[in-house]
């Protein structure tokens, strides 16, 4: 008796704790990408020049997301190569709908195959507001075998009434569909009703009689003759014939009703990357540290200017974070107004030497990317990385404002004392 009381008390306490835990749970609205490992986000797909043309749209109003991405040459071994990819928008469900998408101008409804490492691609996504609310939207490249790699996310406010959403479509045989959202649904529900009615008839035909115990007892006495009668067989056969007739009759009628049908489209597209920029700058990492208490990445790199113009370091970007050198020419316009401000480092990029790199010059430059963003974005778990390296894009700018993009990558060591 005592142990029963104790156990009962214990169970009530557990139940109470569970209820309490449920009260204090938070909803997850955005930033799921922070759970991905640092090497996945810093050394695979680097997004840049990402622009959202609107931050507030009404239901049915279109908005456009454009940008570019580089597939890093130093692709991690633990991540599948981009043999098959799919371009999309990352959203919390169908809060927005896709209208059109393009990769280097090629329609992107289907997946692409054999994208090249070390090359750039341009994307364009046209979307439409559907469900009112505030939704976090990212550009998304999914890689077969590895999963989604997202670009910088932006909060998009959708206003209006969800019931007003329409997406009209005209089929290739001229049929106009008012709203794709309800297409085919009433027909399907009618057919479900037909089949459920037939099933209900058959089940009720047997359920109205003694069902279990009497039948079992009769069977035990060897009186199977009273369990199934001629009438039962007749009704069953007629029902079977009716079912087959409806199945094939409906099939042939549907064939006539929709004479032109196509199978699901399963192929992949191919697309050439953007033209390769001339390799005007060569960057080799000499040393890279992450200062854990200082939340700063210190990189020393040997840079060689192979071009004909002097170059200044404008920006270091990785995993959608941007560290802009405020003293470089064009720094004030480097980050567009629509770029998510929570991904831009407040203090920007610090350099050991602000002098531009002259044509033909080779110099070791140390730069520091310091911001709490590293921790907020959970990019500092180097101790748990299987491949302790970092990657990113380095943007240079010449006197005319022309931008040169280079990849930078190398091993990184975390340090736990202030540097």
């Amino acid at each position: 008796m005592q142990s029963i009381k104790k156990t009962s008390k214990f169970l009530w306490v557990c139940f109470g704790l569970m209820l309490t835990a449920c009260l204090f749970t938070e909803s997850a609205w955005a930033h799921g990408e922070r759970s991905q490992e640092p090497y996945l986000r810093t050394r695979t797909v680097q997004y840049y020049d990402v622009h959202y043309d609107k931050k507030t749209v009404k239901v049915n109003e279109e908005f456009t997301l454009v940008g570019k991405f580089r597939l890093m040459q130093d692709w991690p071994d633990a991540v599948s190569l981009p043999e098959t990819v799919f371009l999309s928008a990352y959203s919390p469900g169908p809060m927005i709908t896709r209208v059109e998408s393009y990769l280097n101008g090629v329609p992107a409804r289907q997946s692409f195959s054999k994208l090249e490492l070390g090359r750039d691609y341009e994307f364009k996504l046209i979307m439409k507001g559907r469900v009112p609310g505030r939704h976090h939207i990212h550009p998304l490249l999914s890689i077969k075998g590895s999963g989604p790699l997202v670009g910088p996310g932006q909060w998009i406010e959708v206003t209006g009434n969800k019931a007003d959403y329409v997406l009209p479509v005209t089929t290739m045989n001229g049929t106009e569909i008012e709203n794709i959202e309800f297409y085919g649904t009433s027909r399907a529900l009618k057919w479900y009703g037909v089949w459920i009615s037939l099933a209900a008839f058959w089940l009720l035909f047997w359920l109205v009689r003694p069902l279990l115990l009497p039948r079992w007892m009769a069977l035990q006495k060897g009186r199977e003759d009273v369990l199934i009668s001629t009438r039962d067989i007749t009704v069953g056969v007629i029902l079977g014939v009716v079912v087959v007739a409806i199945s094939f009759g409906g099939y042939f009628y549907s064939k006539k009703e929709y004479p032109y049908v196509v199978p699901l489209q399963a192929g992949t597209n191919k697309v050439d990357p953007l033209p390769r920029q001339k390799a005007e700058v060569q960057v080799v990492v000499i040393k890279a540290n992450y200062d854990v208490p200082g939340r700063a990445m210190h990189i020393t790199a040997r840079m060689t200017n192979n071009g004909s113009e002097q170059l200044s370091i404008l920006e270091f970007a990785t995993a959608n974070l941007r560290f802009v050198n405020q003293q470089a020419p064009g720094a004030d316009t480097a980050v567009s107004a629509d770029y998510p401000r929570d991904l831009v480092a407040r203090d920007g990029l610090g350099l050991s030497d602000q002098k531009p790199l002259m044509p033909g010059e080779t110099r070791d430059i140390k730069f520091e990317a310091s911001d709490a963003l590293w921790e907020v974005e959970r990019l500092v778990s180097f101790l748990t990385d299987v491949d302790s390296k970092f990657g990113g894009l380095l943007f240079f700018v010449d006197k005319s404002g022309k931008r040169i993009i280079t990849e930078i990558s190398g091993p990184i060591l975390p340090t736990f004392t202030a540097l």
Partner: protein
Amino acid sequence: MNTETLQHPRGAAAGKAHAVETVLSVSGLSPQAAHFSRVFELMVVAAIILLFTGAIHLHVLLLAGDWDLFLDWKDRQYWPLLTPVVMIMFPAALQGIFWTFFRLPIGATVGATCLMVAVCITRPASFMWWTDYPLNLVLPAQMIAGAIVLDVFLLVFRNALFTAIFGGFAFAFLFYPSNYTIFAPFYVPVSHQGMMASMADLIGYVYPRSATPEYIRIIERGTLRTFGDSASWVSALFGGFICIFMHYAWWYLGVTMSSMKFLPNNTKVMALMGTKADA
């Protein structure tokens, strides 16, 4: 007692002599006992509906999964092949149980109806109301047509083997035509961004599912290309062939799982159980 075959009642001389007898009178239950038996049956029916609605739904979700869930997975190769092969398992087991112990030819229909009840609840609830997806993206296939025919074959043949051969085959073969009437409008072609797509492809594209990129679809792969647009019938035929064996195996699995087994009361078993035999 031979639980597999039954002499036809019209051929039984005893049938004529006992023409006015009913199941209740043969069972020997008193009216009060019959009443309580009926109440018990209704409770069992409710329990079976609850239990098998959940079980068969989980089973189909795990095995057939995306082919049954999404419109843009219903192709001509994998869908007509995999879905009936997966969906026949529980109905076959239920048939085995209901027929063996009660001579009730309703097992397959019970399974199919329970699945229909489950998806009629979960698809609107999970996709439409919870996550705002349109219902046409997640319309389920039905297997009631094949299940009724499977039950009718059992009723006529009264034999597990013939039911498996003819009924199991028919279950899979009927799957495609009986569902084509529902899904035919979704194979109508549209031009999207200058490329041809079916309405199913377009609906799948328009409503983003971030965790299921397009390349994940296992559709229209492999050969069967020499059959042109008859690939679906080849899949249906092959599915029927597999269903024969699947039905037979799951019939006996159902009967075995619902049978009582006893261990003999000897010293070996007692030693195995860790109890000491009497001196």
